[in-house]
């Protein structure tokens, strides 16, 4: 390393390259970060100034009324619960099936193992299309049913392949030793495999959780019951229907004082922005912390795919 660090005359073309690179990437970063920042400062600034487009770089007249107001909208709290529940339950299901099937498909003793493996993995390369899928789910009774968020994605071939590859990299002696000691298939899975494959399960969990939180199409197609609306879907409705906002404020409460304060403070744009921040917040919170898992996920995927 010391050799490369030795000072040499800087080529003017290299100097220019450095400057241009820094400028351009600072611009890209700004374009990606600023919209989030802009919306955030608008939610904590005076709604009246925000409405007139006066908040550009710094928050003015700080307040948290928007967040308090939003937390009083019952349908929004319901949607938050649905989103949270589907994210947690959905992630648990997908992680469990990926780990278990990833392990089971390495069991050479299994009857017709290869056929079943191909049966599952083949589903990565086709899908029936949105309308046949919609009709089938409806026929299966998954219309307006919470399980439509969980079951269709519970067995995910891609994550099974990831886990299987990982299990295959574990030294065979480890499982053999356990079996000589009399451990059965399930016992081996639980006490030998599961502790070892935790890193890959973290990757699977983080990807699934983000996908579940962001999912929109299943609600759009198969849910009309407001009690099952997700945050994403509710946000979409807020953006699109100004009228629904008015009725929301009216329905929020019948006690006149709160209704009045809501109607007073909450104009449509502020509510939209506030809800946007509420929906995006978990992602922004989670993403930088777990970035290495995301990157690992795409790498293993790239090697396999």
């Amino acid at each position: 390393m010391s050799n490369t660090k030795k000072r040499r005359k800087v080529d003017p073309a290299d100097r220019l390259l450095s400057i241009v690179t820094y400028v351009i990437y600072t611009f890209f970063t700004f374009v990606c970060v600023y919209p989030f920042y802009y919306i955030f400062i608008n939610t904590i600034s005076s709604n009246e100034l925000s409405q007139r487009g006066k908040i550009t770089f710094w928050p003015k007249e700080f307040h948290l009324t928007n967040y308090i107001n939003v937390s009083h909208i019952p349908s929004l709290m319901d949607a938050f619960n649905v989103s949270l529940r589907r994210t947690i339950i959905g992630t648990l299901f997908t992680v469990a099936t990926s780990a278990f099937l990833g392990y089971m498909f390495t069991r050479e003793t299994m009857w017709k193992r290869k056929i079943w493996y191909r049966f599952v993995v083949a589903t990565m390369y086709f899908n029936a299309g949105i309308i046949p899928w919609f009709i089938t789910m409806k026929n299966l009774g998954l219309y307006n049913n919470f399980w439509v968020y969980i079951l269709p994605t519970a067995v995910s071939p891609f994550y099974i392949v990831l886990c299987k590859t990982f299990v295959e990299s574990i030294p065979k002696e480890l499982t053999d030793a356990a079996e000589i000691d009399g451990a059965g298939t399930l016992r081996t899975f639980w006490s030998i495999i599961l502790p070892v494959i935790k890193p890959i399960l973290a990757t699977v969990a983080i990807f699934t959780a983000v996908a579940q939180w962001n999912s929109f199409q299943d609600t759009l197609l198969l849910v009309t019951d407001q009690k099952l609306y997700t945050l994403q879907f509710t946000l979409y409705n807020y953006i699109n229907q100004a009228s629904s906002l008015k009725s929301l404020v009216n329905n929020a409460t019948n006690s006149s004082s709160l209704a009045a304060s809501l109607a007073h403070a909450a104009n449509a744009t502020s509510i939209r922005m506030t809800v946007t921040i509420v929906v995006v917040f978990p992602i922004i919170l989670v993403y930088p912390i777990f970035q290495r898992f995301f990157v690992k996920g795409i790498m293993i995927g790239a090697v396999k795919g």
Partner: protein
Amino acid sequence: MNKRKARGYREFLLILPFIILVAIFSYYPLYGWVYAFFDYKPPFPLTKETFVGLKWFSYMVDNDIKRKQLGQVLLNTFAVSGLSMLFSWFPMIFAVFLNEIKCKPYRKFVQTATTLPNFISWVLVYSIAYCVFNTTGVVNTVMTDLGIISKPIAFLNSSEHIWFKMWLWLTWKNAGWAAIMYIAAISGIDEELYEAARVDGANRIQLIFHITLPSILPTYFVLLFLNIANFLSNGMEQFFVFQNPFNRQTIEVLDLYVYNLAMGSGGYSLSTAIGILKSVVSIILLCVTNGISKMTRGEGFI
């Protein structure tokens, strides 16, 4: 031996519930393709519907108006996919020059910031677009203040440059993430190659053109082939959230058209028929590109 066999069956029984799940949620929907050959009207079961054979397949193109409409949808699909193919080198170049940033914390920061948009949903992207680009949004305010425009521009409620705007949003969301694949490829390049070139007096531009780019080109081609295989599949979510009465004509790509046709006007059978044709073409594209990949690179990507 018998014991081994018994164990094999037991193991199969353990995965059977999951095999059934896959059969129900991935294979059984394929049966839904039969709706393309019936006159399906939702509340009634299939047994009460009339079999119409290939009626819907010819119905798509049996008069000028429908031909024109389908033509427009295909044009939109081709334009949107074509644009993203035309600029498919962008993530690669993004990665190459990102690698030229020698200050590591700053490079990490840029990488984190530019990959973040990939992890938010299209609904959120639309919501952000709405907040930033509506008539009182920051873009209009700043442009008005600087005197560039005299009255606000309705960026979202217009029919102009939709294909290009859709490409921009797609790039905003995906480019940073797509670059990660190339960054990995770059970090795998043998450092000695660079050393040797430096000794020969190469500057950084020369290093990029003679070492970095040639080394990651194979990765680019794999991704390009995958792109071609997905030419007809733009997904519907992006176009669904951005569609409005102003831009409907030029934003409706095939996936969105299929959705709108069924959910908007109840044409379940017709849209299933279109979906089937799309699937068939996609499978052919996948096989062809995989074949080309096998011929040119010696290996396929499936």
